[in-house]
């Protein structure tokens, strides 16, 4: 950390400091923010693979347990990227200590970059941890590492941005909980973490195609197996488009001072 501290130029020091603070904030409570989502994902893996292994096969020559792992990694990565920016913002708004950032010369863009980058770090750290534990138990190929990386990066960026929007918008913890339970959770569970959308009735297949989480998970899984429900190019396009729209919205909110400055 000290080495990086010295390398950062003065111009970037403000942004870097906020990023560093946001990373340390979750790292200080890593049991809750990293270890516990990893454990949850492994429990899913244990239960679902035990119950469904041998009964369900989604792709040829891909055991269900292996199929499940990229979905679980992506699910945890997305949820944690969202949780990082949203919980940091809502906490510091409720506690009042967001004022320490609002009093500084940091621009709205620097604010956005720092919160976003910290969310990406947390998302990828959780995802990578699950991967590193899971490969002890399951044989998992990696066919296209670049696709894996691209979807991990854009997915965590998308949810980190979404978390910024939710964190700015929400005034109370229960509003944030509603956001998490009524938006994030359904979108994740109905996205193909546990199944291929081809196994769904046509109506639900169509519905799934309106869910951005489906594209992130399908594209991410494509990186491991070289197979997916749709082309990764389409998926990456959809994810990038969603990211652009949400980033535009988040920046607009931050620039106007919405719910942060009166």
């Amino acid at each position, binding site marked *: 950390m000290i080495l990086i501290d010295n390398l950062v130029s003065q111009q970037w020091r403000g942004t870097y400091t906020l990023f560093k603070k946001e990373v*340390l904030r979750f790292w200080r409570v890593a049991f809750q923010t990293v270890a516990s989502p990893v454990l949850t994902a492994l429990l899913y893996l244990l239960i679902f693979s035990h119950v469904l292994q041998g009964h369900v096969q989604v792709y040829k020559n891909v055991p269900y347990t292996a199929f499940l792992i990229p979905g679980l990694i992506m699910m945890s990565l997305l949820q944690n990227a969202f949780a990082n920016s949203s919980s940091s913002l809502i906490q510091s708004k409720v506690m009042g200590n967001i*004022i320490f950032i609002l*009093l500084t010369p940091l621009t709205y863009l620097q604010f956005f970059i720092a919160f976003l980058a910290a969310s990406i770090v947390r998302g990828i750290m959780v995802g990578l941890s699950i991967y590193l534990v899971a490969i002890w138990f399951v044989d998992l190929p990696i066919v296209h590492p670049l696709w894996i990386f691209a979807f991990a990066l854009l997915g965590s960026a998308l949810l980190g941005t979404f978390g910024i929007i939710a964190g700015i918008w929400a005034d109370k913890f229960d509003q944030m909980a509603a956001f998490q339970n009524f938006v994030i959770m359904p979108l994740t569970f109905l996205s193909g973490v546990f199944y291929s959308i081809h196994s769904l009735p046509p109506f639900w297949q169509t519905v799934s195609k309106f869910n951005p989480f489906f594209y992130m998970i399908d594209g991410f899984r494509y990186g491991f197996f070289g197979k997916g429900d749709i082309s990764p190019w389409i998926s990456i396009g959809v994810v990038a488009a969603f990211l652009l729209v949400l980033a535009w919205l988040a920046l607009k909110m931050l620039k106007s001072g919405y719910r942060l400055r009166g």
Partner: protein
Amino acid sequence: MTVPAIKIEQVHKRFGNLHALNGIDLTINQGEFFALLGPNGAGKSTLINILAGLLKPTQGKVSVMGHDVVDDYQAARMVLGVVPQELVFDPFFNVREMLRFQAGYFGRGRENDAWVDEVIENLGLTDKAHTNMRKLSGGMKRRALIAQALAHKPPVIVLDEPTAGVDVELRQMLWGFIKQLNRDGHTIILTTHYLEEAETLCERVAMMKQGEIVALDTTANLLEKLAGKNLRLKLGNAVLPTTLLPMLKSGENGVYTLALTEPNQLEYVLSELRKAKINIEDMQLFEADLEDVFMSLVGSK
């Protein structure tokens, strides 16, 4: 001429129908020790929040050391340190970490660490430098809050009710520290409810009422012009003559305090008492304080 530390020109702030600030004009020079007084809801905090960039003025201009707080907000915030009124803190970090982060947001790096340590020491926080903010007592949190405002070494420092709920000992210590900052050249602006503090510390005072400045002068002038003297009379069982009632400030158990705006009023009071054949058991003449000025300007009278 040097640029003023703070320049506020015709600032209005409306929250819906509420006109929180109604055309404030105020210039504070570099090196001043300035107090902003007023009852709750007078608009002091609104004005400070505009200064700090937490609120935007509906109308008007505000600058800090010549930098507009809206158009040139980065430069304005660089030269301003604000101590918020509420005891807010970040529960994840210790005192030294928080101060280093705070300096970092302003673009300051390791070269600033010596200053951070100096602030920690001067505020008596050395023993607590590695204590988590969450575990600090109220008084220590208040000190840490002041330290945070100073972390980037701003020339202009605003303290919003810094001694609210602080015990006497800490209050003395804080004022000693703030006076030292002022001697070192920092401009100090504070809001306070403790009028005797403003009286002993500040060269100039602005009094606010309902979003307007109702008095702006040196502390000495305000005391001289508006306060006059107080006369305390002990009259035993006698009742104060009705002719003296307009001068009455307070009275109970036969002890009356009259406000004298002119010295020759003393003669008038005595003659009225003589006329009414009232015996004076005891009499005391004393200088009015800022509280009297304050009450006469913003009180409900």
